[in-house]
């Protein structure tokens, strides 16, 4: 091969191999044969989420925050318990006190879900991803399933860790506390883990539509925290409706042991959240399928 810059000005005679049009190669033996399936795509997405550096940091961050907050919250709320009025003592919720860290953990899980999509757009790996698996439904579906495979067990670990730390801390402060054998405890732990997995899927749906990591995180903050904080300030009926049905607020009831009569029940609330996430995933699929990569 001639170096382009050492080429003399008159065009040299080009040395070419003869064209071999029409010659067919035998089917490849090296790469294996067979049709690619959903399970292949799931395997690919599992490798990707496992080898994304942010996955570990997001998980560790959520765990540290939830458990740390449970310790602090447990000891301070437990210390104040003795000074509460009898009515407030009756409404004291040791489950919610220990699991309050979910408020921030849900952002971390949402971020993890968002990153599953937005990291592909950020690094432009969406191009190799879609040339490997051109079926968009398969890509989104396998991403969602791989994400749940990480988020659900980790979510349960987060709630279990926060519960254990929070109850130990409450018990140390001499306040009422729960044991794992209490039915409401298991509902809070598994339901809370489920809620965090749903938060991750919410992030995935938002990430698929928004495509930018920062914009996805901002949206997650708005949806999960800002609305929650300002719902009581909204006027009359709207405020009541939002406080009751806004999906993250409704879903959050899953970690409460003392029922707020104004709010939905724990499982009904989680159902609202799940329905909302399913609807958003459907929207994300329609957008993802219709859009050029």
């Amino acid at each position, binding site marked *: *091969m*001639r*170096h*382009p*810059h050492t080429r003399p*000005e*008159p*065009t040299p005679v*080009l040395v*070419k*191999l003869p*064209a*071999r*049009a*029409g*010659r*067919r*190669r035998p089917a*490849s033996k*090296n*790469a*294996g*044969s*067979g*049709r*690619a*399936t959903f399970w*292949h*795509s799931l*395997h*690919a*997405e599992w*490798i*990707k989420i496992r*080898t*994304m*550096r*942010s996955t570990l940091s997001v998980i560790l961050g959520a765990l540290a925050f939830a458990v740390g907050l449970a310790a602090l919250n447990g000891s301070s709320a437990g210390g104040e318990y003795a000074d509460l009025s009898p009515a407030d003592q009756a409404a004291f919720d040791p489950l919610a006190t220990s699991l309050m860290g979910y408020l921030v953990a849900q952002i971390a899980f949402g971020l993890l879900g968002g990153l599953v999509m937005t*990291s592909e757009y950020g*690094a*432009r*790996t*969406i*191009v*190799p*991803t*879609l*040339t*490997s*698996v*051109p*079926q968009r439904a398969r890509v989104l579906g396998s991403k969602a399933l791989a994400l749940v495979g990480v988020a659900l067990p980790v979510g349960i670990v987060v709630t279990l860790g926060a519960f254990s730390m929070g109850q130990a801390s409450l018990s140390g402060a001499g306040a009422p506390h729960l044991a794992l054998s209490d039915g409401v405890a298991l509902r809070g732990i598994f339901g809370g883990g489920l809620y965090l997995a749903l938060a991750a899927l919410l992030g995935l749906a938002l990430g698929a539509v928004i495509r930018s990591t920062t914009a996805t995180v901002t949206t997650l903050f708005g949806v999960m925290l800002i609305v929650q904080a300002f719902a009581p300030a909204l006027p009359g009926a709207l405020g009541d409706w939002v406080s009751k049905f806004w999906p993250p607020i409704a879903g959050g009831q899953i970690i409460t042991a003392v029922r707020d009569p104004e709010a939905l029940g724990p499982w009904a609330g989680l159902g609202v959240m799940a329905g909302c996430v399913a609807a958003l995933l459907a929207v994300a699929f329609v957008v993802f399928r*219709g859009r*050029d*990569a």
Partner: protein
Amino acid sequence: MIEVRGLTKRYGEVLAVDDLTFGVRAGEVTGFLGPNGAGKSTTLRMILGLDAASSGTATVQGRPYSAQPAPLKAVGALLDPGAVLPSRTAFHHLLALAAGNGIPRSRVDHVLAEVGLENVARRRAGAFSLGMRQRLGIAAALLGDPPALVFDEPLNGLDPEGIVWIRSLMRRMAAEGRVVLMSSHLMSEMELTADHLIVVGRGKLIADTTMKDFIEAHSEREVLVRTPRAETLRPLLAGAADVRAEDSDTLVVTGLEAATIGALAAAGGVELHELSPRQVSLEKAFMDLTRDAVEYQAEKRTN
């Protein structure tokens, strides 16, 4: 065989790709040539099912890309060498792509060795140089050992060593009987690589020809004549050829052989200091060919 029929991509008012029809044969390197913005990448993205065509079809071995039973085993593509998560290792990047098509892990090691990245396979791809990323992109394209390869501007930003490497790889792949389609906006890159040329401008097909025919059709021979008596020589040649003065003592003659010019000069008693045939570069021929398309575009922008 890659076949494109009436392929069109419209963005609002703008036709990025305008009714393109061409075929790419196996066993040769086909250059997909056009100025920047001619619609080359958009065409390749439609062939690979990344962008939806407004109308028309693109098939590989008779099927649309999305209908391939295992796409990486049908077409290997290098579109964007930077497309890798910086924190992921080269090995895991390829492993995930391979897994999506059920390609065995041994094949990942094989292609890493083939592109010479086996020693850095466990390093984060974010630390890779452009040349290494390009090799990683090629490794991804080769994963499925596909009968067709599509490279978008594969020589962009590479050092001479990398250019030579990719060129010989493409020639080897074609010699093995594969379809090799490579885009570029530089004729000089095609000259040494491609057997067949598909030239586009402003989304339209301008030429679909063998490299040999293209060179023959567009390499007009010129003869450079240097003489202190240019003004005397000029009328002697002007009857038979196209003569233009490049300098006060230099003429450029088209349409006459050097020997004939020498004979005419001798007959006229004109002293010559230089008489050298030269070939118009293919780059210039390509630019002439696509000028209309480019100018039209520039004109449109100012409106």
